[in-house]
C-alpha cells in the first residue's frame, strides 16, 4: 500500500474563521476548506461538531508555532486520530443524551473534576521535600510518614476540596431525584457515565499530571543548575583566571588552588548555610584556617570531632589556635600542617601539629614572644593551658585545652 505524503496537521492560523481548525484539516487532507466547514457546521447543530472543534483546538498545534494546550498528547498514528474522534463523538453523544438531566451532568462534571484533582495530587513527587528537615529526636521509622505529610499540605487541602465538591454533587443528585427508584436509576446512569469518562479520560489525565510534574522537576533542576553556574562563575572561574596569570609561581598556584578547594568543598557540604556557621566553635576555627591559608602558601588540614556553640569565652582559645597555626606556617618550613579539635562535655582541646624543623622549647624563652605571650600566657589568663612539644628536626605540636564552665 503506498502512503500518500500529506502536510502535517496544524491549525491554519493564517486564514482562520474561528481558530483555523477547518482550514488546517483541509490542507492536511487536501480537500476544499468549505466542505470541512460545512461538515462541522452541520454536525454542530446536534452538538457533536462544536465539541469536536473544541477538542481539535485543544489537541492540534498552530501552524505559527503556538503549542496546543494539550500538545503533550501526541496524535501520531491513524489509530490515535481514530481514538480521539471516537472519544469526542462518544462524549458529545453522552452529553446530548443526558441533556434532560442537566443536574446529573453537573454532578458528574463536578465528580470527575474532583477525582482528577485528587489523582493529580496523589502522583508521587516529593523531590522538593528537604529530607534533612526532620528533627533528630523523631525515630527514623516515622520519617517517611512525616515526609509525605509535610510535603503535601497542599495535597491535604486539595483532597478536602475534592471531597467537598463530590459531596455537593451527590447532594444535588439526591435533591433532584427525590424518590428511591429514581435515585437508583440516576445512580446507575451516573455510574455508567463515570465508568465511561474514566475509561476515556483516565489515562489522559494521569499522563497530563505526570507531564506537569516532570516539567516542574525540570524547572527546579534548571534553577539549581543556574545557581551552580553562578557560583562556579564567581569562584572557580575567577580562581582559574588567577591561576593562569600566576602560572610561573608554583607556590601561588598551589595556594590559589587550595583556597578555592576549601571554599568549594565548604559550599558543597553546607550549601548556602556555609556563611552562617560563625555561631559554632568549629566554624570559628575553620574561618581562621581559611584566612591563614589565603595569606600563606602552607596548607592547613583541619579535622573536628564534635562541636559546641561559639561564645566570647572561647575566643581566647581560637586566638591562641590562630597564633599556633600562624607560627607553624611561618617557622616550620612545611607544605601542610594538621589541626585537630575535640569538644567534650567538660573540655575543649585543639592540637596544631607540623612535621617541620622544630625547636627547643626551653631555648626560646626570650626571643619567641609569640609562643610565650600569645599562646601560653593567653591560655593561662583565661583558665586554659598550652602544652608545647617540639623536637629539632621532628616537628612541633601545640596542645591547647580549655575547661568548659571553668571560665564561666
Amino acid at each position: 500500500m503506498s502512503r500518500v505524503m500529506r502536510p502535517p496537521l496544524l491549525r491554519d492560523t493564517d486564514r482562520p474563521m474561528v481558530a483555523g481548525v477547518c482550514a488546517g484539516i483541509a490542507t492536511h487532507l487536501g480537500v476544499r476548506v468549505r466542505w470541512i466547514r460545512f461538515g462541522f457546521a452541520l454536525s454542530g447543530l446536534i452538538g457533536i461538531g462544536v465539541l469536536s472543534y473544541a477538542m481539535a483546538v485543544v489537541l492540534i498545534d498552530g501552524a505559527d508555532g503556538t503549542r496546543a494546550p494539550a500538545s503533550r498528547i501526541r496524535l501520531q498514528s491513524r489509530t490515535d486520530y481514530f481514538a480521539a474522534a471516537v472519544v469526542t463523538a462518544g462524549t458529545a453523544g453522552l452529553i446530548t443524551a443526558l441533556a434532560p438531566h442537566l443536574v446529573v451532568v453537573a454532578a458528574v462534571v463536578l465528580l470527575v473534576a474532583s477525582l482528577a484533582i485528587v489523582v493529580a495530587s496523589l502522583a508521587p513527587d516529593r523531590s522538593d521535600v528537604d529530607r534533612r528537615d526532620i528533627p533528630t529526636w523523631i525515630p527514623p521509622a516515622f520519617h517517611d510518614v512525616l515526609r509525605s505529610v509535610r510535603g503535601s499540605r497542599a495535597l491535604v487541602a486539595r483532597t478536602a476540596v475534592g471531597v467537598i465538591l463530590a459531596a455537593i454533587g451527590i447532594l444535588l443528585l439526591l435533591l433532584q431525584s427525590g424518590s428511591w427508584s429514581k435515585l437508583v436509576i440516576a445512580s446507575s446512569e451516573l455510574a455508567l457515565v463515570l465508568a465511561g469518562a474514566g475509561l476515556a479520560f483516565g489515562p489522559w489525565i494521569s499522563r497530563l499530571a505526570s507531564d506537569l510534574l516532570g516539567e516542574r522537576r525540570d524547572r527546579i533542576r534548571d534553577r539549581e543548575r543556574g545557581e551552580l553556574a553562578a557560583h562556579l562563575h564567581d569562584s572557580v572561574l575567577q580562581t582559574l583566571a588567577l591561576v593562569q596569570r600566576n602560572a610561573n609561581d608554583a607556590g601561588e598556584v598551589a595556594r590559589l588552588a587550595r583556597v578555592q578547594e576549601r571554599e568549594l568543598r565548604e559550599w558543597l557540604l553546607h550549601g548556602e548555610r556555609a556563611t552562617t556557621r560563625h555561631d559554632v566553635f568549629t566554624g570559628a576555627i575553620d574561618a581562621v584556617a581559611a584566612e591563614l591559608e589565603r595569606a600563606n602558601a602552607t596548607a592547613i588540614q583541619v579535622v573536628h570531632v564534635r562541636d559546641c556553640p561559639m561564645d566570647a569565652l572561647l575566643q581566647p582559645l581560637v586566638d591562641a589556635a590562630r597564633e599556633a597555626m600562624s607560627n607553624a606556617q611561618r617557622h616550620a618550613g612545611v607544605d601542610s600542617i594538621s589541626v585537630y579539635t575535640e569538644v567534650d562535655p567538660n573540655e575543649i582541646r585543639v592540637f596544631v601539629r607540623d612535621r617541620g624543623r622544630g625547636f627547643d622549647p626551653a631555648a626560646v624563652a626570650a626571643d619567641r614572644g609569640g609562643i610565650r605571650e600569645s599562646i601560653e600566657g593567653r591560655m593561662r589568663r583565661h583558665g586554659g593551658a598550652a602544652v608545647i612539644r617540639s623536637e629539632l628536626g621532628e616537628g612541633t605540636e601545640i596542645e591547647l585545652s580549655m575547661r568548659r564552665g571553668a571560665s564561666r
Partner: protein
Amino acid sequence: MNKSMDESRNAPGHDSLPTVFLVDDHELFLAGVRSEIAGAVSVVGTASDVDAAIELIGERVPEVVLIDVHMPNGGGERVIRETLARHPAVQFLALSVSDAPDDVIAIIRVGARGYVTKTIATAELVDAIWRVRAGDAVFSPRLAGFVLDAFAATAPLDLDPELDLLSPREQEVMRFIARGYTYKEVARELVISIKTVETHVSAVLRKLQLSNRHELARWATQRRII
C-alpha cells in the same frame, strides 16, 4: 613515611611490587596518578567507567584497586560490590575528591580497605597502596575524625559492644590519626609496635563496616553540638 613504607615492603611474602588497577572517570587524573606511582607499584590496567572496570578487574585480578567514589552508572560502590562477590581477595582503596561523610562511610561499608583524598602526596599514596595490599586499613585524618564523631554518639539501646563501640585504645589510635600522626608516629607515642597500630585500625575498619548503626554517616555529618 618512607621508612614505614620500607617496613611494609619487607613484610614476608610481599616483596614484589603490588599489582594495581586504577579506576577513575577523569582520564586526566587517571594518567596523572598512573605516571606518579608508576615506579613504586606495578599498574596492570586502568578503566574509566564502571562496567569496563568490573570486567577488566575480573580479568586481571590485581592485588589493589584504586577506585574513584563518584562515577556514573553505580559509582565505585558497584565496582567494589560486584568484584568482591567473585574475587574476595582484591583490596580496594578509595581515592576521591569528596570527603563528605556519607561518601566515605558508604564506600567503606561496601568493602573498601581505606579512604584517601585526591590531594594526597604521592609518597603517602604509594604507602597506602602497600598497606592495603598487606590487608591493613588506611584512614585519613578526616576519616578518623568521622569515626570518632559517629561512634561517640549516644549509644542505641540494642547496642552490640563488639561492633558499636570503640575500645579506649582504638579511640586513642583514632585520635592520633585525626591529629595527623602516621602509624609509625602513633606507635612511638603509645609505645606499641606498628603492627599493633595496624591491628587497632583494622578492628575499627571492621566495626565501621559491620556496625548496626545504620545512621553512622548521618551522625558523622551532623556534628553534634554539646
